[in-house]
Structures are given as C-alpha cells and as structure tokens.
C-alpha cells in the first residue's frame, strides 16, 4: 500500500537539531511555496495545573503575547499585521502550542516574536483583565451551547475530578474569574521552559540558515530556575493518565438548556493512548464505525436510513494519555433514544463481528491514501512533524505508516472495538431542550 506523496519526508530530508538550550528543531524545506509555517508544542498544558486552578494554563497562553519586556501588545500585533503574518498561542490539556504563518522572508520575524513572547511576557494587569473577560464570554457561550455542554460534562464523568483530562481546558467561570496577573506570572515561571519545546519550520527555507536563526532566537531562551523539565512534563502526563476505576453500570445525564430545539448527545468509553499497540486497529475500526463516507456505519444507520440526524459520527482521539472513543450526534429530542440505541447497536456489532474484506480494504486505503492531502500545505507538514516527534515515531514514520495500517486484520478491528466498546458501562450525556419521558 503506498501513500503516493511527492514529499519525501524522512530522516534524510528533515533536519533535526537540538538547540543549545535543549529545545528540538525540525526543518523541512518546501521550495515550491512562497510561504513558511512554524509550529511548536511544549509542556505548559493543563496537566501542570490543578482542579482548583482549572483554566490557568489556557489563560496564560492566551495572555502571553499581551506584552513583553520589549513590546506592547499593539507593537507585537503591528509587526505581524504589517507583513500579513500571523502568530497565535494556546494551551490544551496535554501541552501548550503555537502556530505561525508568513511569507518565507519573514521567518526571522516569526521566530523573534515567538521567542520574545515565550521567554519575556510581563502579563500587564489591564491586558490580563481583558483576556480574562474574553474567556468568561467564551465560557458563557460554552454553557449555552448543547455540544459544548455535553462534551464538558462527558469528560468530567469519564475521568473524574482528579485528572486534568476531566476538566475543560479553558476552565470554569468560578476558577477563571479569580485569576490575577500574578497567578499567570507564577505559572509561566514554572511551566514555560525550552527543555520540552519542539519547534518545526516548513516552507521555502534553507535548513542550515534556519538552524542558525533558531540558535539566535529560541535557542537563546534560558529556562528559569525550577521550571519544568521534559521529564517533569512526562511525570505530569503520567499522573493525568492514572487509571480510574471503570463504572460498573452505564451512566447517563440529561442537561436541559433553555431555548434550544435540538439535543446533542455524546456516548463513549475510555479509549487507548496513541502509543498503544492497538492504535492502528482502533483508527481503522473507528473509520468503519463512524467516519467512512458521511459518518460510517453510524451515519448510514442514523442519518441515511432513519433520517434522524444531520451529523452522527464517532471519534477515537489520539493522545499521550488515554482519550475517549466516543459517538456524537445532533438529534430532535423526540428521537434521542432511537438514535442512541442505533449507535450502540452498530458499535456492538463491530465488537462482535469482523468487518468484511471490502469495508476493511476501503477504510485502510482511505487512511493511507489521504496522506498526500495532509501534506499539501506547509502547516499540514509542520503538524505531522510535530506529531511524529510527540509520539516518538521517528522521522521515517511516514514510510512505515502505510504498512502499519495495511497489517491490520478484520479480527484486529473486531478485537480493538471489543476491548473498548464491549464494556456495557458506557458514559452518556445529552444536552438540549428538556427531554420528556426519559
């Protein structure tokens, strides 16, 4: 099975270098493009915060560019906007990240600004106040949105209160409204350090020149004493991943939101880590269950055959920690139970019976054959380089990926599905108008 990409992304074409401060640099030259993309991840995700400070990592990342020792927020924005470039920072549960785009001649600007913002933020009080208020508005929207409400509650139930995976990345109104600039400064001093940072640059660039430039910018960032190290981050991830006793029985919660006409449901189980040997069987299984065409078997049943929903799909999210395998759909309240039953039936069917050869072949070919589409844009390539580094897959990973997918058998698909969804104790959350007669 071949992926057919014109890009030969491998250990020969990707320049990998450890900078003087321990950060990792990955460079892939794509001379066909006039632009450059940079991307990076590092430790400062929600795994370094506590339940009492839920949302602190996210607010810190959002406020990072709002003022540094050398630039005001307006000056930072002006330097980017003048040349049509963009640079943004955010934090997820497992890590914090940045992404930037510019014409290739402006790579130095992107790296200079990235370094200044990561290393020297001052978190001015007034700017932190504005970002906090914006976050409160985002949280108000999440409270009002059925999909967001279902998703947030689902994770709380699945992981419990002691894992950062169980609380929302952007926190709760009750925690966020208390954050002061000094809380962000302290979190930055503790969680931002170059040792765990991996930076990728892709576009019309010359790798040796990028390496020199990166040494002068990101490479010159000295960590604060006591800041998190790479191993400290891995320990925090392991703690967030601590196994939680599975529920003995299915659990369900229905959330009523005023003024809504449609119910969103999220139904799922604790899944696996990206590094689990059954990962490839799982992504093939998920593709069959809830992706192929317009939502796989679930979409075919719930949408095409029964006409119950506009969207109905399943998701197996990759992560450094165990992540859910879930099914979600938007349904008229009168049909919620029918759609849930149909979804469960499809999941259990795949856990019982291996897929036929044609369904298996199509799904595997789709997962492999779509690779060139993901490598078309510089930011797509940068994301794949970062993914290969994050999961320690090696720079030759894209060469072996087709074989890893191709090796998945029909029995592997059934077994990977059974290992997760055969558990009768699923977690289910619905959100929308008040349900009658449930």
């Amino acid at each position, binding site marked *: 099975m071949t992926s*057919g*990409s*014109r*890009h030969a992304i491998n250990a020969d074409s990707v320049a990998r270098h450890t900078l003087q401060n321990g950060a990792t640099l990955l460079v892939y030259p794509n001379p*066909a*493009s*006039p*632009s450059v993309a940079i991307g990076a991840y590092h430790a400062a995700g929600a795994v370094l915060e506590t339940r009492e400070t839920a949302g602190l990592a996210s607010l810190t990342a959002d406020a990072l560019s709002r003022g540094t020792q050398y630039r005001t*927020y*307006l000056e930072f*924005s*002006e330097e*980017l*906007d003048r*040349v*049509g470039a*963009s640079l943004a920072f955010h934090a997820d549960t497992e890590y914090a990240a940045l992404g930037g785009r510019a*014409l290739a001649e402006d790579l130095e600007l992107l790296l200079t600004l990235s370094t200044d913002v990561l290393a020297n933020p001052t978190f001015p009080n007034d700017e932190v*106040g504005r970002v906090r*208020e*914006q976050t*409160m*508005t985002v949280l*108000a*929207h999440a409270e*009002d*949105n059925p*999909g967001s409400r279902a998703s947030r509650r689902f994770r709380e139930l699945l992981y419990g209160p002691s894992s950062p995976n169980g609380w929302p990345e952007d926190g709760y109104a009750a925690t966020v409204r208390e954050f002061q600039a000094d809380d962000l400064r302290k979190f930055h001093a503790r969680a931002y350090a170059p040792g765990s940072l991996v930076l990728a640059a892709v576009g019309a660039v010359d790798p040796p020149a990028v390496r020199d430039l990166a040494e002068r910018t990101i490479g010159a960032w000295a960590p604060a004493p006591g800041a998190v190290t790479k191993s400290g981050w891995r320990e925090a991830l392991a703690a967030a991943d601590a196994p939680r006793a599975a529920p003995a029985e299915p659990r369900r919660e229905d959330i009523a*939101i*005023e*003024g*809504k*006409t*449609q119910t969103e449901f999220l139904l799922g189980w604790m899944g696996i880590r990206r590094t689990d040997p059954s990962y490839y069987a799982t992504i093939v299984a998920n593709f069959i269950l809830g992706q*192929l*065409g*317009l939502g796989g078997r679930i979409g*075919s049943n719930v*949408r*095409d*055959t*029964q*006409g*119950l*929903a*506009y969207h109905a799909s399943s998701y197996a999210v990759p992560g450094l920690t165990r992540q859910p395998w879930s099914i979600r759909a*938007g*349904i*008229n309240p009168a049909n919620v139970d029918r759609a849930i039953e149909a979804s469960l039936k499809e999941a259990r069917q795949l856990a019982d019976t291996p897929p036929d050869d044609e369904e298996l072949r199509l799904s595997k*070919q*789709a*997962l*492999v*054959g*779509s690779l*060139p*589409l993901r*490598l*078309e*844009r510089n930011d797509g390539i940068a994301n794949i380089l970062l993914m290969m580094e994050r999961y320690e897959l090696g720079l030759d990973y894209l060469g072996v990926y087709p074989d890893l997918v191709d090796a998945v058998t029909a029995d592997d698909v059934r077994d990977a599905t059974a290992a997760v969804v055969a558990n009768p104790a699923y977690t289910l959350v619905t959100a929308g108008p008040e349900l009658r007669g449930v």
Partner: protein
Amino acid sequence: MDDVREHALANGLAVLTREVRTAPIATFFIWYRVGARDEPQGMSGASHWVEHMMFKRTQKLAPGDIGRMVEGVGGTFNAFTYEDATAYHETLPAEHLDLALEIESDRMLNAVFDPDDVEAERTVIISEREGHEASPMFRLMEAVESTAFKVHPYGHGVIGSKTDLRSMTRDDLFGHYQRHYGPGNAVIVAVGDFATDDLVTRIDQHFGGFPAISQPTSVAEREPAQDEARRVEVHHPGPFPVLMLCHHTPERTHADCAPLLVLNALLSGPPSGPFGGGGTLRTSRLYQRFVASGIAASVGADVGVNIDPSLHRVVVILHPSGAPEPIEEAVLDEIRRLHDEAPSQAELDRVVRQTYAKRAIALESVTAQAVQLGMLEMAASWRLAQTLTDDLRRVTPADVQRVARTYLREPARVTGWFLPAAANGAAA
C-alpha cells in the same frame, strides 16, 4: 493565477483549469448557478435540499457509493450551497481524478429523487436547521436578512424556513433539479496535477453528450432601494448580546466593489471569503476600538461578494453584561470617521501588502484555489482573482471616503440585535 485556462463544450458547459504540480493531487469542482437567490416563494431551502439528494440515488449509484468511491482511494468530497450557487467537489490523488468525472457527470442529470429518500432527508435537513438554531448568530442573521430584503430571495436563508421544509414535495425538489442542473448552467473548475488537454478531452467524453438546457428564468426580483433605516431585535435565551449592523452594497460587478473591499480592510482586515483573507487583524480599526479596549469580546466585518446587491456587515459580540447602546454608538462613530476623514495613502499601501501575503498563504492548497476561482466566477468573473491586487492598488483615499458616504449611510442601514432573554421573553 495567470495560468488559468478557459474552455467551453458545445453544450455550454464551461471549464476552468489550472495545472499545479506541487503535490500529486487534484481537485475537481462543479458549480451550478443555483442557490437561495433562485428559490421562489414557498421553496426556501430547495437548492440546499437538492444538494443533499445528490448524495442519494442516481441511475447508477446507491446512497453511500460516492463516499466509498472517493475515500476508498484516499480522497475527500463534499458539497455546499450558498446564496448564489451550489458546488460539489472531490479532492483526490491525481491518478484517480476520473472518479470525480464519473460521479459528477452521473448526478448532473441522473439523480432519482426516490420518495423514501426525500422523506428521510427532510428530517435530516430539519435536524441541520435545528442545530443552527442553537447559535445566536444564526437567529440574528435570519432576522437581519429578512429585514434587509423584502423582495429579493436573499431575504430567506440558504437552509430555508421550517414551514417550507415541512411542505415541499418530492416533485417540487425534482423540478428544481431539472430546471437548474445541466451543462449550460454549470462551471467545472479543476486545479492540480494533470495535463490540461488530456483532462479537457476526458471532460468532453463524460459531459459532452448531454443536451444543452434552456437557461432557467431568474426569480430574483431587484430589491427596491431602502430609503429608511430599519431595525430588528431578536429576544431569545442566549449567552450574550450580539450586534449586526449592516448597509446595502452593490453587486460584485460594480466598480465600487474594490473601494468597498479596501474600506472593509481598514475596518477589519484584507478581503476574505473567496479572496483568501479572513479574520480580524488586531491592528484594525474595529479590533482596536472594541476588543483591544476591552469593551467587547469580538468584532468582525465583511462585504458580500454576490451576484445581486448584498450587505456590508459589522458584527460585534458583547460581553454577557455588556450594554448595547454604547456599542452601537461606537460602531456608528467608526462609520462617521470613514465619512469625515479619507484614509492615508500609507494605510492603503498596507492593505495591498497584507492582501498579497494573506492570499499567498491561504491559496496554498488546490482546493482553496478552486474555491476562489469558482466563487468569483459565480459572482462575476474568475478573472477577479487575477486583478484583485491591481484593483485594490488603484483605489485612492478619496474613493474610500466616497463609498463610505455613498453606501454606509443611515437610510441604507439595517441594525439587528440579539438580546438574551428568558424563555418567556423577559429580559434575562
């Protein structure tokens, strides 16, 4: 975009091609000149519903076949409907591009509209609409459009009203399909790794035998000029107030469109949508006034790129406790500033530079290029993709001030508010 080639088959089917060899992939779009603007009274949402039916049964294909064909070789596919057009697309490994020709030539004329499929899709589309209804922005947009357009079909949304979605019949939809789907009402746009002459030959083999259809009669009556400011308020449970302040603007072929794009770039950012920009720049006038100052949560502005006269919109999302009146007054103040002061030449030069960079980045993918060419061709001409930078460069400070005074004036204004309310209609 200098290397786009134009072709026309004898039956009227237009073809635009651009060879791009940076990746071994190609994208194939077919655009039909049918959207919300072509829907008569009582048939709002018909174009979008027809789009859904095109993934059902044809004389050759069963539901799900298209997904299996395209994804089975690693491709992606989808479709979308908007005010002026409906587009279907497949992006594929280049060696499989003929799959797109097979699919699109089949469903151009051979869709079946099985009655059971139509009924199943009715509830799917109502479900899609009910999903949108969760959004304050959707509710406000519907109210503003119906207030702004009393005659023209732009006054009803693309998804359609629930009343029409419940009452339209299979034959209504099939008639809409037969009137609007055919070679003379369509444009193919292909971008990617192929040899143009060979591709055009294959397109002719697949589509050349179809008879030309008569051009459908337009139902889009010209909207009478608005001579008095209009206002609409939506009171519904929701998280925060939203302001949508609009003014009527001319059709895309009008000479004032370039100065309006520059005006909008000063307010929020370089031309978006088919032009490849998008997003509000943090140094823009509106961002500085509303978000950097902390008085609102987010702000944006855009100009409609449509066949018929459309709207310029400023959208402000307030903080949950934000007071509406000062926000509306501040937007009007920014509009007065455009009336009173011509921008500097340096500001206009900066818009051109930003536009060049944003487009270079946004148009990296073959799919984005095909969207731009097709959407511009639907609204006016794909050649706007070639001339945009020069068009913007020719705009003078006086042009910007003139179009501000011409279009962003009170009688042409439609002001819409989404105001959170308890379920019984009382203020929340």
